[in-house]
C-alpha cells in the first residue's frame, strides 16, 4: 500500500528548527540579562530571524506567518522579544519597503543575521501620541549632510542597538527619517528605570552629523513612512504571543492543581481562551494583508487594540491565579509589570480606537461593510 507524502509545511519547519535551537540555547540568561542578542545570532546564522525576508537579505523568502512562529517561540521560551520587534518587524520592514538598495544591502543582512540591531527614536517628552510636536531638528550643512539636535525619550533596547531610526524636522517643517549608527559622535544614551524589566532610555543628539546615505526614503516624507512603520508594529503578533504564553503558564498551574478550581475560575479561563482564538483571527488577517501588500491602517489598529487589551487581561488573571498560593512567580510578576505598557507602546489604546473611528465612523459610509 502506498501513502501520500506529508505535505511540506515550511512554516512548521521554521517553528521546529527555532524550537530546537531555543531548547538548547541559554534562554534563561537572555531573560535575566534582558539581552537576547546571543539568541538572535544563533537564529540568524540559520536564516531564522527574518525567514520572511528575501534570501539576498538573509531570509528564506517564506510567508510572513513564519516570522510569527519565531516570535511565538521567543515568548514560549521567555526570550525578550522586543528587540526582534524593533529590529526586524519595525525598522527592518520599513527599510525593506522604503530604503534605497544600497541601504538595504548594508543593513538588512546584518539585522537578519543578528549581527546588528535597531531601535526606534520617535518619542519626545511633549510628543507622545502626537508626533507632530517633536522638536528634534535636522539642519542641512555642506555636501548633502545634516546636523541633528534634540532629545528622544522612552526608547527601549537602545544601548543594544547598532542603528537608531530617528525622526527629525527638516526643511519647511517637514519630517524626515534618518538611520544613524548609534556609535556616531554626539549621541548620548541614558538609562531610566521603568516599571517593566526593560528600562527606558533617553537619547540626546548633540549636533550629530547625518550623511546623505543615512536618509531613509524620500526627504520630507518621514511622516507617511512613520505611519506605515507604526502599522507594521501593530500586527499584534508579539502581544498575542505573549498573551498565549502567559495563558499557557496559567493553565499549567490549573493542571498542577495549585489554583482554586471553582466554576468562576473555569469561566474566566474559558473566556480568555475564546478571546485568544478570536484575536488569532485578527492577527492572521493583518499578516495576510501584509503578505499581499494590502495593509489597512484601521485593521492594524483594531488588531493592536484587541491583542494588547487581551494581553493585559491575561496577565491580570495569571497574576491572580499565581498569587493564590501566596507566592510570587517571577515570570508572572514580570508579565504583570510589562502588560500595562502594551496599551501605550506602538500607539495608545485611545489612538487605536480613534484611528478606527476615523476610518469607520466619520463620513456616511457603512460602518461594518
Amino acid at each position: 500500500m502506498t501513502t501520500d507524502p506529508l505535505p511540506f509545511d515550511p512554516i512548521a519547519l521554521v517553528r521546529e528548527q527555532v524550537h530546537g535551537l531555543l531548547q538548547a540555547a541559554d534562554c534563561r540568561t537572555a531573560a535575566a540579562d534582558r539581552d537576547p542578542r546571543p539568541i538572535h545570532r544563533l537564529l540568524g546564522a540559520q536564516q531564522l530571524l527574518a525567514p520572511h525576508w528575501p534570501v539576498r537579505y538573509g531570509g528564506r523568502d517564506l510567508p510572513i506567518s513564519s516570522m510569527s512562529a519565531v516570535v511565538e517561540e521567543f515568548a514560549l521560551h521567555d526570550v525578550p522579544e522586543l528587540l526582534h520587534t524593533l529590529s526586524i518587524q519595525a525598522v527592518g520592514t520599513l527599510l525593506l519597503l522604503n530604503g534605497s538598495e544600497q541601504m538595504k544591502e548594508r543593513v538588512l543582512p546584518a539585522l537578519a543575521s543578528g549581527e546588528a540591531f535597531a531601535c526606534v527614536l520617535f518619542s519626545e517628552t511633549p510628543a507622545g501620541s502626537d508626533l507632530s510636536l517633536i522638536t528634534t531638528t535636522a539642519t542641512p550643512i555642506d555636501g548633502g549632510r545634516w546636523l541633528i539636535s534634540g532629545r528622544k525619550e522612552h526608547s527601549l533596547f537602545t544601548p543594544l542597538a547598532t542603528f537608531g531610526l530617528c525622526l527629525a524636522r527638516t526643511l519647511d517643517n517637514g519630517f524626515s527619517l534618518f538611520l544613524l549608527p548609534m556609535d556616531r559622535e554626539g549621541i548620548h544614551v541614558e538609562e531610566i528605570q521603568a516599571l517593566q524589566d526593560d528600562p527606558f532610555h533617553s537619547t540626546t543628539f548633540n549636533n550629530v552629523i547625518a550623511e546623505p546615505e543615512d536618509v531613509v526614503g524620500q526627504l520630507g516624507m518621514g511622516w507617511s513612512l512613520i505611519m506605515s512603520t507604526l502599522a507594521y508594529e501593530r500586527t499584534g503578533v508579539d502581544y498575542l504571543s505573549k498573551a498565549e504564553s502567559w495563558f499557557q503558564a496559567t493553565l499549567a498551574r490549573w493542571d498542577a492543581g495549585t489554583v482554586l478550581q471553582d466554576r468562576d475560575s473555569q469561566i474566566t479561563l474559558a473566556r480568555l481562551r475564546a478571546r485568544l482564538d478570536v484575536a488569532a483571527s485578527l492577527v492572521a488577517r493583518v499578516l495576510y494583508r501584509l503578505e499581499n501588500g494590502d495593509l489597512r491602517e484601521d485593521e492594524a489598529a483594531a488588531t493592536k487594540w484587541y491583542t494588547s487589551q487581551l494581553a493585559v487581561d491575561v496577565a491580570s488573571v495569571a497574576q491572580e491565579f499565581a498569587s493564590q498560593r501566596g507566592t510570587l512567580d517571577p515570570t508572572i510578576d514580570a508579565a504583570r509589570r510589562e502588560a500595562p505598557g502594551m496599551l501605550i507602546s506602538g500607539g495608545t489604546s485611545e489612538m487605536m480606537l480613534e484611528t478606527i473611528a476615523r476610518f469607520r465612523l466619520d463620513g456616511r459610509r457603512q460602518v461594518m461593510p
Partner: protein
Amino acid sequence: MTHNALSHPHFVNWGYLPPDPLLEQLRLSIAGIFREDADAWHEFSEMGLWDFCLPSAAGGLDLGVSAAAVVVLEAGRAACPLPLVHTLTGMMLFGEISVLPPFARTVVDGIREGRKRVYFPLGLPTTYGTLSGTVELTATRHDRTNSVVMPLGLDLLERLDTERDQLVLAVPVASDGLSITILRPPSDDTSMDLGALNPEFVGVSGLGAEKRLLAVGERTAILQTAFLVGLAAAAIEAAADRVRSRTQFGVEVVNFQHPRLELARAVVEIDALTEAVRSAAAAYDSGTSTKAATSGLLALASETARRVSRDALHLGGANALVACNLPARIYNLVTYAAQGVGPLNANWLEAAEFL
C-alpha cells in the same frame, strides 16, 4: 498532518483563509434580498437554503456550514426576526434520521417548499447537543398554520413513557390539544401541555435522539453565533446612524470622545467575531474544529452581542427605546437569540471543557 511534531499544548494558528469569492457573492446576494424584502422566506426556499448544510446523500446541497453562516449572519445584519437557525437546525436533525416517519417527511417537504418554519421552544441544542429548557416562549406568537415546533426535551419523559430523557419531535403548532406557554427548567413543574399528542410526531427518541442532537449541536452553535454577530453589527449601524445625525450642544454626537470610542470598540469586537465565526465555520467544514472552541466562540458572541446591543440603545437615546424602532427590536432579538442557546454561564462552562 504536517511536519510539526512538537508537543506544545497550543500553538497560535497564524494562517488566514481569505473570503471565498463564491461565498462573498452569496453574501452580497443575500444582503440585496434583505434590502428588498425583510421577510424573504420564499427567496431562501427557492435558493435551497434549508439544504445547504445537508449532505447530498440526504438530498442536501452539501455546501457546508460556511455557506449557511454567511446567510444567517446577513439575516442578523438585517435584524431579520425569522427562525432561520431554528429551521436550518430542524432540517439538519431530520437529515440525521435515515428513515423519516411519514409526518416528518411532510414537514421536510413543507420546509423545502417554503410553507413551513420550525421553532425550538425549549431552545436550540448547544454545541454538545444538550438542552437547557429554560427558554420562555409562547407558541401563539407565531404563525399557527404553517409552523412546526420541535420540542426537544427532558420534560416529556413521563408523558411519552420513553426510557430516555431526550427525544426529537416535530409537532404542528395547530395540533389539537397542544398549547405551549411558559417553559421552565426541567427540574420544575413544566407547564407544557401536549394533551393528545400523536406518537407519530416522534422522529426519534432515547439514545438515538442524543446522538442526533450531538451531531447537529456544533453546526447550530456556529450558525447561532453568526446570527448574534450579525445582529450586533446591525446594532452598531443603527447607533452610528444616530450619533452621526444628532447634534447636541452644537457638536455632532459622533465627535464626543466617549460615544466615539465606545462605538469604535464595538466595531473592533464585532469585526473580530465576524472573522472568527467565518474561521470556525471553515474549520468545521474541514473537520478541524473543536467543540470547546466553538462553545467559547458562541459564549463570547452571546456576551458581546448583548453588551453591544444594550450600548446601542444607550447611544440612541430615548428614541432607541421606542419598541418599533430598530435599536429596541435588535436588543430584543439579541436577547431571544442568546437565551435560545441557554444561560451564558452554561455556555461558558461548555467552553471550559478543554480544562
